[in-house]
């Protein structure tokens, strides 16, 4: 829907081509793009505005105008500020108490019941706690049944009173029961409610007063839009909750709601839901979230690294060959050697947005590259230029010549074919190429000075 911030900023600074100088106007334009990226990611309107102002101040303070890489510098400021806002340290939950009580709240359908079960599973299996789930949603059809089924799957007891419509009383009785049974942690699932529903908000407030929880958690759907600000504020006013759970992050939402909630209530995000399965619960990584909101993978560090290492003219030629599907083993070898220069390959590949997923299974280790080099060097020039002709007998010869085996040769040829596909797919919007273009321009700029 929206290009990533990096390429938008690129545009802002492209405007100045021909002037050889970056002006205030370009900075303003860049900041506008930052703000747009945030709004497109569903960051609250005012929050996006305040944030952009802060970046502006920093940019002026650091004198971005004079820098050689204004785009990168702005991205870096944005990124650092965002990460800072997301919260530096990971904050765990408090599970000491007799029993410790965790109250789970939020809007309808945000994922409270699922999260309650996930947390129970985590505490039971990873922290060795005895856990009890409490069915505090007496309204939604089959809510109790849902919790019971989930609890059964993870072998955790549920406290429910199917006939009772008073969640305050149910919660209190549950805790007494848990005490008797020597349970370590009690997790209370509650009904979804709107922040403007006075009666229901009074109810949750009464539950909280009755059970004095160690942790009150606010569960919010990562796809939430501008309303995240209102809702988080209201829930926090009434409950003064201790932490936030961000669900459904396995989707493709940018998740700007995370920033809104953090900024508005200043409470840590303690967990993220990343799927419907019971194990699909993760701790929160502020930096990752910042990247996600901006839509840029770890592009910042990649750009920096790539610029240091890759020869731009080579890249341009490569780009042309890729788009014409002429990429062959000679290019492959060249690339390989260049990448090797850049350092840890696994890390580097992981920095390219989208690449992480693709290469996840193909375990890259540096030794493998030695063999690959040997195999390619054992090919005839003709074979390198036209890999299609490498048939069975040629493969045998190559295997022998390189001191490897048929299996490895086959794998490389297949990998090559796959890489070619991947590279072609990425050659259109190739981040490396963009980095190259940028570097070229910077060089050009320097020359003009």
């Amino acid at each position: 829907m929206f290009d990533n911030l990096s390429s938008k900023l690129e545009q802002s600074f492209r405007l100045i081509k021909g002037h050889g100088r970056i002006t205030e106007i370009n900075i303003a334009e860049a900041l506008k793009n930052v703000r747009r990226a945030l709004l497109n990611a569903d960051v609250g309107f005012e929050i996006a505005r305040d944030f952009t102002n802060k970046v502006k101040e920093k940019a002026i303070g650091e004198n971005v105008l004079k820098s050689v890489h204004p785009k990168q510098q702005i991205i870096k400021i944005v990124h650092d500020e965002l990460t800072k806002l997301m919260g530096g340290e990971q904050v765990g939950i408090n599970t000491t108490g007799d029993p410790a009580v965790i109250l789970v709240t939020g809007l309808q359908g945000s994922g409270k019941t699922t999260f309650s079960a996930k947390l129970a599973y985590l505490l039971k299996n990873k922290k060795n706690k005895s856990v009890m789930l409490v069915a505090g949603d007496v309204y939604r059809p089959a809510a109790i049944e849902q919790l019971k089924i989930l609890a059964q799957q993870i072998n955790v007891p549920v406290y429910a009173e199917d006939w009772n419509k008073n969640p305050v009383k149910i919660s209190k009785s549950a805790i007494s029961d848990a005490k008797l049974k020597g349970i370590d942690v009690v997790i209370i699932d509650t009904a979804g409610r709107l922040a403007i529903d006075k009666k229901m908000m009074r109810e949750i407030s009464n539950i909280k007063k009755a059970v004095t929880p160690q942790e009150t958690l606010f569960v919010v759907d990562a796809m939430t839009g501008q309303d995240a600000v209102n809702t988080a504020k209201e829930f926090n006013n009434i409950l003064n909750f201790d932490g936030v759970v961000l669900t459904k992050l396995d989707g493709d939402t940018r998740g700007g709601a995370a920033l809104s909630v953090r900024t508005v209530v200043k409470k840590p995000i303690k967990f993220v839901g990343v799927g419907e399965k019971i194990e699909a619960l993760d701790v929160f990584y502020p930096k990752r979230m910042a990247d996600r909101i901006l839509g840029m993978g770890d592009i910042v560090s990649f750009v920096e690294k790539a610029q240091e290492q890759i020869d731009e003219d080579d890249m341009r030629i490569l780009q042309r060959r890729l788009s014409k599907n002429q990429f062959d083993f000679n290019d492959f070898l060249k690339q390989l050697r260049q990448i090797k220069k850049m350092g840890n390959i696994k890390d580097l590949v992981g920095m390219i947005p989208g690449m992480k997923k693709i290469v996840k299974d193909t375990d890259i280790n540096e030794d493998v590259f030695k063999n690959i080099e040997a195999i390619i060097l054992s090919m005839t020039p003709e074979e390198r230029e036209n890999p299609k002709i490498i048939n069975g007998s040629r493969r045998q010869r190559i295997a022998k010549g390189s001191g490897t085996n048929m299996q490895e040769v086959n794998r490389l040829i297949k990998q090559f074919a796959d890489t070619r596909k991947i590279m072609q797919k990425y050659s259109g919007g190739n981040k490396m190429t963009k980095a190259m273009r940028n570097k070229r321009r910077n060089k050009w700029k320097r020359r003009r000075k």
Partner: protein
Amino acid sequence: MALFGIFSKKKKEKLDKGLKKTKENVFKKLTRAVAGKSKVDDNFLDNLEEILISSDIGIDTTLKIIDRLEARVAKDKYFGINGLNKMLKDEIAGLLSENQSIENTNNWNSNNTNDPYVIMIVGVNGVGKTTTIGKLAHQFKKDGKKVYLGAADTFRAAAVEQLDIWAKRAGVPIVKQKTGADPAAVAFDTLKSAKTNNADIVIIDTAGRLHNKKHLMDELSKIKRVMKKIVPNAPHEILLILDGSTGQNAFEQAKQFTKATEVNAIAVTKLDGTAKGGVVIGISDQFKIPVKYIGIGEQIRDLQVFNKKEFVDSLFK
């Protein structure tokens, strides 16, 4: 069409109540921005931008609205806040109007074969699919239709039980299998029973799924395909449920669900809260899919036929 005729007046209050909080805000800001001015200035546009974006209308659609408004103001004259407000509403309604005619889209009984009219409900997790089915079943039944429900969410814990309760509340039959059963098989069975029993309308519930999960989207296509074996034109309606509090991701939802199942109607839920569901304006504009219903509560009667004018009014009154 008599169906849902009772809706508008009674339910409007509730919708208004939910929207009230932000409405006052909107009005105050806009009034302040225009007070004593005779042309649309930057200050006004800034305020308008804030209002629209804060309703989840999104940047692109907001810019479109502002462009249209400016063009209109350049052409016609406006007189004070009222004139301007009216223009603004017109322009927003304009984005919805090209494809918003409930009378025409509500063609489920123009179905001239003996087959039931089949509605398949799709959407991401927790948006209100199952609840909306309960509400629809209730309304259709009240309108004298013979309704069948199919519990094709065989994945989520207690999804079948939940729909079962709604079927009882609405007083309509349900076809179901065990959790873990093949959803396509449930849909198939439902259509078969419905057809044998001369049902008028069949509503198929499906499991919530995020649109970026290919295998789950493929599963939807399969459910859809299998139903055709019983009713060749089924599903006649693929109703995408969007949560009114969802932000810009709703675009991607509309896009991907349309790709997998050819969505031809939208329902927006949870508009009884403070969220305004503005994202549907852009979606309707871009994908030309009409918004048919809105959900305004958790009770069986809390469903309203989407009314473009009321929706836009509620944003600016």
